[in-house]
């Protein structure tokens, strides 16, 4: 247990724990917000009460998730200073500004309108409420933009240079528009959306399987399916573009993702490793299963490589990532899930075209519904694996090629870091168990189908068909 007295290792563990745990929640806060905008927009357009009830029902899960996201995100804002003080000082000019922008543009917007979105149904007119929902979604996704900008800059630093260990920015827009930024942002944006869609779809499938309000939840399943139709294939394509960028800009990460120890020359058509047991000590794979000729197709969509794929042995051991197995399998799990979700989407589309998604027929589609239920947590797994590939693969660097992680930790006494690490671990366990417990309670309770429409909907706003002269609540007539 030597690492228990190593502050760098403990600070890294604390960062990994807080980042991995925190990441679970913003996924829904950003992705589901878009769904809420769509569903509320559908309500405003069609005035069908079911859409309103959908907006209210999913918002309950949304707020539970949001609160835990806020709670678990707080340590992230401060631990760059507490645990990574030399890093904060070295890159504050750029990295710190970006975190400041995230707070001012994204978090504040999200938080400022969340209250109205949740509790303001009876207090503001429907269009104003929809605007609040849009602002929450916009703020949440802006935070994806800024945090991916900051992280991409760690991967491919641009827009200035390091002078005596401190980053001096010469061009801010170049630093923001660093090589990884656009693809990484899009990849994460679609990841949160796709995960949220399959969570909503999975929960809807669970209700249909249990024959609880099937006609109500077919609606959400269909809305989700329509959006996923675009998102799932597009995400695979953007993922491919991201891998291509890693190939060019971070060859040591690509070598770890592929557990490739020896360099493969340009012009060859190498096999792609499907399963392997990498051994970092000996610098080889103890065994592996390969698909012949496939690597160049995956990397370049061509039969031969136009550039060499560098092997891990090109770098000194201290200059390359060490957790090769973790990176290798995380990458495979992430990609596998992406392909599976796209497949499930295609299968469901086929069923839809065959007319099997009608409310009266859908309960017979057991395989498809179980598939959706199974898919509900997969997006989270893929997101976490992706971040592991991205950030563990970047090691031993904090800023790729410039600043070493080992030099960036605050020289704190190990026992205090261990105490805070255990404290966060304990508290996050409580959060996780609580979220699952109360989340499943909300789901088991189900939607409140008797919820009255907002008070702000006056009689004159109603469609002529719904106009009730006796002023009874509209839903009583249906």
């Amino acid at each position, binding site marked *: 247990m030597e690492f228990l007295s190593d502050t760098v290792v403990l600070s890294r563990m604390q960062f990994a724990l807080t980042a991995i745990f925190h990441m679970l929640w913003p996924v829904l806060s950003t992705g589901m917000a878009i769904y809420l905008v769509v569903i509320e927009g559908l309500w405003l357009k069609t005035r069908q009460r079911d859409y309103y009830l959908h907006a209210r029902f999913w918002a309950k899960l949304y707020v539970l998730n949001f609160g835990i996201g*806020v709670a678990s995100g707080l340590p992230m*804002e401060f631990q760059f200073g507490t645990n990574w003080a030399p890093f904060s*000082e070295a890159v504050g*000019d750029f990295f710190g500004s970006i975190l400041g*922008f995230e707070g*001012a543009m994204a978090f504040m917007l999200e938080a400022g309108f969340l209250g109205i979105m949740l509790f303001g149904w009876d207090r503001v007119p429907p269009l104003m409420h929809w605007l609040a929902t849009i602002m929450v979604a916009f703020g949440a996704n802006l935070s994806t933009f800024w945090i991916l900008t900051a992280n991409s800059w760690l991967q491919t630093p641009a827009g200035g240079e390091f002078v005596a260990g401190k980053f001096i920015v010469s061009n801010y827009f170049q630093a923001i528009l660093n090589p990884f930024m656009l693809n990484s942002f899009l990849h994460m944006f679609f990841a949160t959306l796709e995960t949220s869609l399959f969570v909503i779809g999975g929960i809807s499938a669970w209700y249909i399987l249990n024959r609880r309000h099937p006609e109500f939840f077919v609606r959400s399943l269909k809305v989700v399916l329509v959006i996923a139709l675009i998102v799932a294939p597009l995400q695979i394509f953007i993922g491919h573009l991201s891998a291509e960028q890693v190939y060019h800009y971070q060859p040591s990460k690509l070598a770890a993702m592929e557990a490739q120890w020896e360099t493969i020359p340009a012009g060859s058509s190498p096999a792609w490793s499907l399963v392997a047991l990498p051994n970092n000590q000996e610098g080889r794979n103890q065994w592996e299963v390969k698909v012949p000729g496939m690597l160049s197709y995956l990397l370049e969509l061509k039969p031969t490589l136009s550039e060499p794929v560098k092997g891990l042995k090109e770098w000194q051991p201290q200059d390359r990532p060490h957790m090769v197995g973790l990176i290798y399998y995380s990458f495979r799990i992430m990609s596998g899930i992406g392909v599976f979700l796209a497949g499930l989407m295609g299968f469901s589309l086929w069923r839809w075209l065959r007319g099997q998604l009608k409310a009266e027929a859908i309960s017979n589609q057991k395989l498809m519904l179980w598939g959706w239920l199974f898919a509900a947590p997969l997006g989270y797994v893929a997101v976490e694996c992706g971040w592991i590939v991205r950030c563990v693969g970047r090691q031993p660097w904090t800023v790729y090629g410039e600043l070493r992680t080992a030099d960036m930790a605050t020289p704190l006494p190990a026992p205090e870091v261990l105490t805070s690490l255990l404290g966060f671990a304990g508290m996050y366990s409580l959060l996780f168990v609580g979220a699952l417990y*109360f989340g499943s309670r909300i789901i088991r309770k189900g939607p409140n189908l008797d919820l009255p429409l907002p008070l702000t909907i006056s009689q004159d706003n109603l469609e002529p068909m719904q106009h009730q002269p006796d002023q009874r609540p509209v839903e009583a007539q249906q």
Partner: protein
Amino acid sequence: MEALEHFLPQVWFVILGLFLFLYVTLDGFDLGVGILSLTASDEESRSILMTSLGNIWDANETWLVLVGGTLFGAFPLAYATVLHALYIPVSVMVGGLILRAIAFEFRENSVRSKRLWNLAFGAGSFLAALGQGFAVGTVFEGIAVDAAGHFVGGIWDWLSWKSILVALTLIQGYVLIGSTYLVMKTTGALQQTHYKTAKLAAVTTFLGAIFITVSTPIFYEPIRDRMFDLLYLFAAIPLLGSVLVALLLRSLGQEQERMPFVWTVLIFLLSFVGLGLIIFPYIIPPQVTIYQAAASPSALVFMIIFIGFLIPIMLFYNIYNYVVFRGKITQAHEGD
């Protein structure tokens, strides 16, 4: 150019002060209400207490995130050194804020475990206030740094009788502003209770403030020099403060509904200006000035473009949020 190098850090010192003031005032009453909930007699009144914060606690807490982000961007050295020195108080504060946040979400959905989340709400608010009090006290008292401005003290440096005093006073202050907020937002017996807690907290906060004001020039030479440089100002602030406290007590005695909160905010503002004037131009007292800790001028200009111009917009929609939910809380559970 030299003028610019002085001017930009000053602008950011003021912006940082504004964010911190907004945080301390707004989340201050949230935390105060949280601490007061520990003494609430029944479930119904606790529900009303939490409902009064439901729509705003998250936005109020976000000012703290903004303080963190702007400190990191505008004064990276201060962000690194201060947080290093405050490892334990900041961890306690973050832990407390986490407990407070989940209490809101879990309590809402719980049936049998309501008591546990009530406790988490109160204890979390208390811990957050405690951590903040120690942080303020430590920065005010001074942080040991080397020539490069890096922290060279021990991990328990923040603990002293002085920082304990500041922490206790800040907690009293939060209870005071929380009470006056509840006076504004509630009716009946609940309102009466908080007239009483407000009076009590006004007296204890005032005593703490007097003690801090008197002891500071006696024990801290650099601060004493600074206070004697600006003697009129530092004579005026305690006098004005005493007048405000008298006005506050009078408005509480007359059972006014809004003015107690207004006077309390003004007391917070005055204390804030006083502390800011004592600390300026240092950001890591007693050695590192804002000019030494500031990011490069281009970074500061860039941040003014992206953050500075958003300040009025942020204030606008935050105020709108308060306007939408104005008025008394008569029932627990807004909406559904």
